[in-house]
């Protein structure tokens, strides 16, 4: 199930990426946050309870939307635009 709902601007070229190793698709101009949350329900697990998180502030301040890219970079999903072929993985988080 998706968390986000696309309302407008849906007539854009599709971009394929992988999410945790599985094929996924977003649209050109999507942030990673939008691309992931329009096809799933979370972005990361929290560091202390592994509870799912899906970002919060969307303006690069809360740091709760980190995902990892194939080249090892850890980025804020809200502030990073999706690119064709990107390898995106979600940290499951940790439990105390």
């Amino acid at each position: 199930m998706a968390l986000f709902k696309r309302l407008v601007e849906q007539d854009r070229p599709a971009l394929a990426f992988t999410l945790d190793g599985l094929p996924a698709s977003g649209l050109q101009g999507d942030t990673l946050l939008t691309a992931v949350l329009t096809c799933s329900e979370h972005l990361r697990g929290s560091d202390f309870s592994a509870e799912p998180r899906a970002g919060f502030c969307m303006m690069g301040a809360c740091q709760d939307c980190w995902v990892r890219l194939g080249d090892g970079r850890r980025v804020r999903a809200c502030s990073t635009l999706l690119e064709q072929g990107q390898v995106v993985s979600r940290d499951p988080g940790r439990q105390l």
Partner: protein
Amino acid sequence: MTANTHPSVVIVGAGPAGIRAAQTLHAHGVNACLVDEGLRGGGQIYRRQPENFRRQPKALYGFEASKATAVHQAMDKLATSIDYRPQTLVWNAEDHRLDVVREGRAGSIDYSHLIVATGATDRILPVPGWTLPGVYSLGAAQIALKYQGCAIGERVVFAGSGPLLYLVAYQYAKAGAKVVEVLDSAPFSAQCRALPALFGQPMTLAKGLYYRAWLTAHGIAVHQGATLQRIDGEKRVTGVQWQAGGEPQTLDCDAVAFAHALRSETQLADLLGCEFQWSPLNRAWLPSRDSAGRSSVPGVYLAGDGAGIMGADAAEMAGELAALAVLADNGLPIDAVRSEHLQRKLADIERFRHGLETAFPFPEEWAEKVPDETIICRCEEISAGEIRATVNEGHWEINRVKAMCRVGMGRCQGRMCGLAATEIVAQCSGRELQGVGRLRGQAPIKPLPFGLENQP
């Protein structure tokens, strides 16, 4: 005066304040370096959609479309004529030098004069369940729509208070999203009391009334004096519990947007050694500035919401005014009448801001009532009960409380939880809010990636 005696001015933040500051300097023959963390200028309130999106400004910014367009046009002209550095984070600021990082490469920028226009984020008063997927700040909900054409869910509840509450609910409904209900914590009586002060800015007042009337006319219930109590769900939001006049109520929904107005981003001013003073209006310590925007540190100027919440119109004026102050302080000729005019208009907006605070009063009872199990610090997962236990051990200074229980110690550096934690510490220790201190800024002010390369 020759070009090489011109000050080297750096502006941090390309929102309404930073853009107007850069434009004013440019018009006076001074080309500033404009540094911005965003992909495209405009800041948050006038944030621009990606280049391949097609909506017209009216669809994105409503009544503010012409203002947003004017700011964007100014930005576009500047982008090709000044040193504009988008996607660049200023992570440290010291005497006449900024440390920056852009796409994994670190560097520094020297300045003789600095205009800090770092803007604001939502002010959050947590409730149980606010870390669930589907819960966002009001600003975030607006960005999802404005910047990405998305709603944060299928059925959205809007809660909290402040002008953004009605604006974003209206924008969602207008764009075709299902707005379940609007829960405004401010009682109707407060809004009546505020009317005299609000009449000072009749257009702004009219817009606010219009949004609310539109929601009601479209069958969307707007409740006043309504407090969000809890957000329910296991792996994502399934509903909310709220209360008005002691009556517990529930709503089914899959998303919640909430906030109580905005808070200033003051970390750079702090690192630069600017004096702070208590602002009862903002319930926060803010960097001091004179009426033109000069901070207590020579060569450092402050403009826009980063130095106190006044809104986008005021930010444009304050940006221009700070630029004029920079010019005047360098002995360059400026239009003194214009400067005085801007100062008068800012004073008018300040009065209006007091009216807004009356209309949307801070829910003072929140700190006492927030349940112990509520996560306050979402980075470190520190609860209200853990903060209270730390206070009960005798700690009352916010940095000390942070050291003891780690509230505000996480990756966001207290941006989301700091003010809420301070409210709890003050209430629990029986001290005045301004008496428990303020979270100190620390460099790097946002996390840096490993493996930074130094720029040649």
